């Protein structure tokens, strides 16, 4: 059942992504992207990545949409009707990249394999000893806030820099 649900979500994701790229009305495209973010959060919750799903629902489906709509309010809301430039070259690049990646999937471990390389290297140690070493029952929290605490600390510097860049670009509000 969960495999069927996963397949359904993935199909929805492709449809919504195509809609977000194809729709000429930019508000419509942004709302399709928002729906894409919501389905993405559901997909991740289904995969067991609940922490990431929460973040995506708040940030991807919520905050990003607000940013996009705020931008559109200050600018235009339609894409001009014209064929994309250098369409053949773009499609050739897309198909070349897609073909190479498709060939690479042959080497990947089969999906959900508990013995796949990413699952046997460091993470079993975190799972076994994380609670004893950090006291956090949720091991994702333990990794984020303890084992990789500096990573998370510097992440706030990234956000601060981005906020600073937006402030420099847009200036203070006139009112």
């Amino acid at each position, binding site marked *: 059942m969960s495999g069927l649900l996963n397949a359904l979500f993935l199909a929805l994701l492709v449809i919504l992504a195509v809609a*977000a790229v194809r729709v000429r009305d930019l508000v419509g495209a942004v709302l399709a992207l928002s729906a894409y973010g919501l389905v993405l959060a559901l997909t991740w919750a289904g*995969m067991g990545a609940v922490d990431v799903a929460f973040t*995506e629902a708040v940030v991807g489906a919520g905050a990003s949409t607000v940013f996009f709509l705020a931008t559109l309010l200050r600018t235009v809301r339609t894409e001009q009707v014209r064929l994309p430039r250098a369409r053949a070259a773009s499609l050739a690049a897309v198909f070349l990249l897609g073909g190479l990646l498709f060939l690479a*999937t042959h080497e990947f471990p089969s999906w959900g394999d508990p013995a796949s390389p990413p699952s046997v290297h460091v993470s079993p140690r975190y799972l076994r000893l994380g609670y004893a070493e950090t006291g956090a*029952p949720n091991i994702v929290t333990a990794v984020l806030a303890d084992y990789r605490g500096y990573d998370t600390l510097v992440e706030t510097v990234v956000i601060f820099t981005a906020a600073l860049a*937006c402030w420099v*670009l847009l200036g203070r509000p006139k009112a």
Partner: protein
Amino acid sequence: MTELLAYAAARYNYWVYILLMLIGFYAMVAHGNLLKKVIGMNIFQTAIILFFLSTSAKRGGTLPIVGPEALAGGVAPAQLMNPLPHALMLTAIVVMVATLGVALAVLVKIYRRYRSFEEDVILDRL
């Protein structure tokens, strides 16, 4: 035939991520509208996050949340999702929003000067 089906069932997830990534890539290279390029970038980034998260999935596994039984060494790692990609991708999502915010701020700035989001119109007015 059944072998082929089993092969596809173990890999169709990866194929969908590649497809999503290519949709984003196409929007970035082929569309002349700058906002569409940002939307494409967003789809591209989320496709990569989706791929990383899928490496943490384990068949029959549950959430990586443990109880006091962990102190006695009663945790079976094969039955819990891999928590490392989750933590890394939380960081990636935050960086994604930061890049999105700066990209949109640059777009507003471009629009103020050139009154358009279309690449060729902006090139004419440069």
